[in-house]
């Protein structure tokens, strides 16, 4: 990995020198840099505003009760999110289990095996890109018609939610994984093949290990999107009032976004504070999961270099 870095820094240096030698170029460069920075700050300020608002609103409600207690209408003061937190973790764990093999598998096929001259491969590719833009609620209807009812008939259980969300985010994983695989220089493949490795050995021992950081990033993005979805889950049975812990094959589960939405639309202001506390919890859950994924990525990154 040393030579690409060298090349990149060389290119950067050359660009900088080019800008410096030209006064107008410098102004334009500064202008664009500040425009880009402005774009970044709009995003960050929006997030910061949301966080500050949630924390202020949730103040006084933040306690372990939120993690250990079930929701309650009678006793709002000690109501918590326990079933929703467990439901979210369970649903997400299985989204992960489904999307990693399927998404990576599909991407490997499309990048390494598929013959792009065949119409069906181009058709599949086009469809995956289109699927990434389909609204979430459409996947909810799909999940309702084919997974909860219909051919699969799993019923309104957490596994149904996992499969529905997996379908929703699969395109994200496939696209990210393809990018990661495409970024592996062909010389590595050719070197491996030249040394007598089979195609599968080349993919599994050379291409995939190098692509893991890119794949992990895709999976993080996908899971982060899935964790915030409420609309499709309402259709496949994420009920709003559940006081017991969820079970994978049992109906009666809920997830954090659904619970937050339900609290936010209540009449009593105490529930609105609770909803804000839910936002904070969701953030904690999301950051913990992402943190773990990033740790995993760095772990593999280090191993590859070392």
């Amino acid at each position: 990995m040393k030579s690409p870095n060298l090349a990149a820094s060389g290119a950067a240096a050359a660009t900088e020198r080019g800008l410096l030698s030209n006064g107008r170029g410098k102004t334009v460069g500064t202008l664009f840099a500040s425009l880009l920075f402005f774009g970044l700050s709009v995003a960050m300020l929006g997030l910061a505003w949301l966080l500050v608002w949630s924390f202020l609103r949730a103040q006084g409600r933040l306690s372990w009760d939120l993690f250990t207690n079930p929701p309650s209408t009678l006793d709002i003061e000690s109501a918590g999110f326990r079933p929703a937190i467990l439901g979210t973790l369970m649903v997400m764990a299985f989204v992960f289990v489904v999307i990693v093999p399927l998404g990576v598998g599909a991407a490997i096929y499309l990048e390494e095996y598929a013959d792009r001259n065949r119409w069906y491969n181009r058709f599949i590719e086009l469809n995956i890109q289109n699927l990434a833009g389909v609204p979430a609620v459409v996947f909810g209807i799909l999940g309702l018609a084919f997974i909860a009812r219909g051919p699969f008939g799993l019923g309104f259980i957490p596994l149904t939610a996992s499969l529905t969300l997996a379908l929703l985010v699969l395109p994200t994983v496939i696209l990210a994984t393809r990018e990661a695989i495409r970024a592996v220089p062909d010389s590595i493949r050719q070197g491996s093949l030249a040394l007598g490795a089979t195609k599968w050995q080349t993919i599994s021992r050379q291409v995939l290990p190098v692509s893991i950081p890119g794949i992990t990033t895709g999976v993080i993005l996908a899971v982060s999107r899935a964790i915030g979805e409420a609309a499709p889950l309402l259709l496949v049975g994420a009920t709003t009032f559940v006081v017991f812990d969820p079970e994978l094959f049992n109906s009666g589960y809920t997830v954090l976004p659904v619970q937050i939405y339900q609290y936010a639309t209540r009449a009593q202001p105490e529930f609105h504070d609770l909803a804000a506390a839910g936002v904070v919890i969701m953030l904690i859950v999301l950051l913990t999961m992402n943190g773990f994924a990033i740790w995993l990525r760095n772990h593999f990154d280090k191993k590859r270099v070392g």
Partner: protein
Amino acid sequence: MDLKVQSKRILPVAVTGLLAASLAACGNSDDDENGGGSNGGGELSGSVVADGSSTVAPLGEAAAELFMTENPGVQVTVGTSGTGGGFEKFCAGETDISEASRDIKDEEAQACADAGIEFVQLGVANDALTVMANQDNPVDCLTVEQLQQIWGPDSTLSNWSEIEGLDADFDEELDLYGPGTDSGTFDFFTEAINGEGGVQRTDYNNIGEDDNSGILGVEGSAGGLFYSGYSYYLENQDRVKAIEIDNGDGCVAPAEETVQDGSYAPLGRQLYIFPSDQGLEKEQVRAFVEYFVSNSGEVAEAAGFIGLTEDQEAEALESLDSIG
């Protein structure tokens, strides 16, 4: 490729497998979604699945909570698919109880009949559909006729001064807020005021299912007008005011007494649950429904609604006895 390197590469797969196994272990349970029932004579167990109106959900949740403290073996879940969505699942045999903020429609009843699902309609609480206005609005009372002028499907009124026969002069632009067309509240209001369910002028601020944004709208707009459940008014009395309703016998304000004695008309309404015959065959469902109806006062108070009158409660219990 020694064994050590191989095992490291397998690690993520192994972790995934472990995760799956441990979660699957959590999934082990003795009662599945439709199973349960009671084990022997005493303790009730099993599940009760209720779904439907988001307006009725707080009632269902309060009832479920009270019921489950007495019957810890029973698992009650309450969903909020909306009155229409609730009936759709109910008639597909997927829920035991459907919660509704209006009567069942003919086509919904037909769907249930086609699926062979019989049901009974039980009142569980009273609600006053409350018309709310800005606190600076001098108008205190509107007749049903005037509400129709404002909300009717052909209405083009855009200013309060255009309303005929107002009890006060008010020159301010009308700013209308109302629930989404899927809501049972919308169906009930349009039926009661415009004479036909689902018919209403369309150029209003559609707040969907989020009643709090209607309150927010009326609070910030001098000519604002909004209708919603009584609990939203109760919680926001310092922000909006309730308009009294004149149904020909003088102005009546929404309140517990006026709803229970029927004088708050035509916007006083009952909220319902519809248990199915199949559901009621399960002991825990029947016990829950009985509990819900006979403790309606306590349940309604906890959820911010108005309890049943004694007559209504007796009627509901009688209907319950008539099925199963």
